């Protein structure tokens, strides 16, 4: 009678351990990427449609361009629409495939023009 209880306890322990591992596995969930330039700082949600939140500086226009250096892909620049104060959403999808993309954000506004670049992993 006691042995099955022990077995159940061990099984629960192992299952709990496995749940802990899978639950805290890195890469689950999309996080915004914070990038700072000299004049502006942004937080970007790097998935189609890309959303740029300007956290520092007063940007009036934002343009995005994506390249995939390892594959030699460059995508045409994409305009954005301002949906809220300091919040810009890409007008078109940018990422043609999964992988590591380099995104250039061109911001212009009261502080002048600046290009901020960052790399991100895209997996859909």
């Amino acid at each position: 009678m006691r042995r099955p209880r022990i077995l159940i306890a061990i099984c629960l322990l192992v299952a709990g351990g496995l749940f802990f591992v899978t639950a805290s596995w890195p890469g689950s969930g999309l996080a915004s990427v914070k990038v700072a330039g000299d004049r502006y700082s942004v937080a970007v949600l790097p998935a189609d449609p890309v959303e740029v939140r300007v956290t520092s500086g007063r940007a009036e226009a934002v343009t995005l361009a994506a390249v995939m250096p390892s594959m030699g892909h460059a995508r045409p620049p994409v305009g954005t629409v301002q949906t809220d104060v300091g919040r810009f959403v890409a007008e078109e999808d940018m990422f043609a495939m999964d992988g590591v993309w380099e995104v250039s954000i061109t911001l212009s506004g009261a502080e002048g023009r600046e290009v901020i670049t960052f790399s991100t992993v895209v997996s859909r």
Partner: protein
Amino acid sequence: MKLINDRAALLLIPCIVALLAVLSLAAPARAHVVEAGADLRVTQTFAAGEVTLVVAGVSRVPAPLRVSAQALRPTALGLELELRSLTDGSQSTGSIRVGRDPASLRASHAGPYELRVRAGDEVSVIPFRVLVPRSASWTMVMDGAFLLAGVLVVGGVLTRRMSRIVVGSASAATAVAVVVMLLAPYLPAAQPEGAAPVAELGRPYAQGRFSTLPARPATGAEFTLTLRLADGATGQPVDDLAIHHEAPAHLIVSSEDGAVFRHVHPLRTAPGVLTVRLRVPQPGRYLAYAEIERQKSGGQLVSGAFEVSGAAELASSPGETVVPYLTPTAPTAGSPVTIEITPEGPIQTWLGMPGHLIVRSEDGVHLAHAHGTAAADSVLSFTLTLPEPGRYLAWAQYAIGGRLVTRSFAVAVDR
């Protein structure tokens, strides 16, 4: 009782083996990042002198980031430093003198940073990443299981209550830990905090274009040589140069006849833009070669040429020469030749190597950069293969007593 003690001993053996296995795992060294046990060394050629900046590795954040400057030749050169986070824009500043105490800048988090180094009116912007080790989730499971097994066994022995439950639980915990340990090579290793996302595919070649300011430099006058690097596929500026042999780029400039030679390390002034200030004593055509290495890619040579006008400076010395010892004495194309040089004294490492040998074919088509080994601290030995018959111009470089020595010679390959 004896049976229980034997069981306990049997349980302890895998625990000890596993702990030793875990302790023996060491972090690999990286070349273009700052992390625990891995200092970043970047050599930059300013007009006032060549400096190697050393950014000491950190094992946690926030932490002071110690930056110091070294030089072969002691100088009083002062550098202004500005560290800027490319994540939140936070800044910290400091100033250092070559060979003196390091400046303590502040790294508040892991991730990308930019170090601006100002020497007089020259500014170099060095991008790098601060990495902080992070353990994978499965290692926590393994460690926890080993800990549980250890506590049960030790507790059982001390309290002399080695019941079936204790032995069974300890065995189960050990089994979980051993299974995870055996699966470890197939489980994903944790990326350090702050690491850049990288594709395993490598990068396209870079295209380089050299230019000078002024467009036609004059002998004896300082001019700026600029190299603009563009991605061979997308045309974007190449801003992912790995620090290799302590510099993002090694630039070799030589006059067509080989009488003038420079091995310098240009400053990154903007993404894809490398500049260096030079002064040459002879007019004529100069050949420039930049050795670069894009991250996750192999090395690459980018070449160009420029013209210098004016009269030859009368005071210009022809440079130090050497007669090397060659094996075989008459080198043949396509076969290795060993070139030995006897330095004047004990060698110091320069750019992480005891010696460098630059070999250029007379027509400038071929350029090789070999690293030497110092046998018995008295002979520098280089081995390389020259591809075709012809005359090759060579420069051996090594450091002695705080001085960089460059000695030139020619190698004739008859057949």
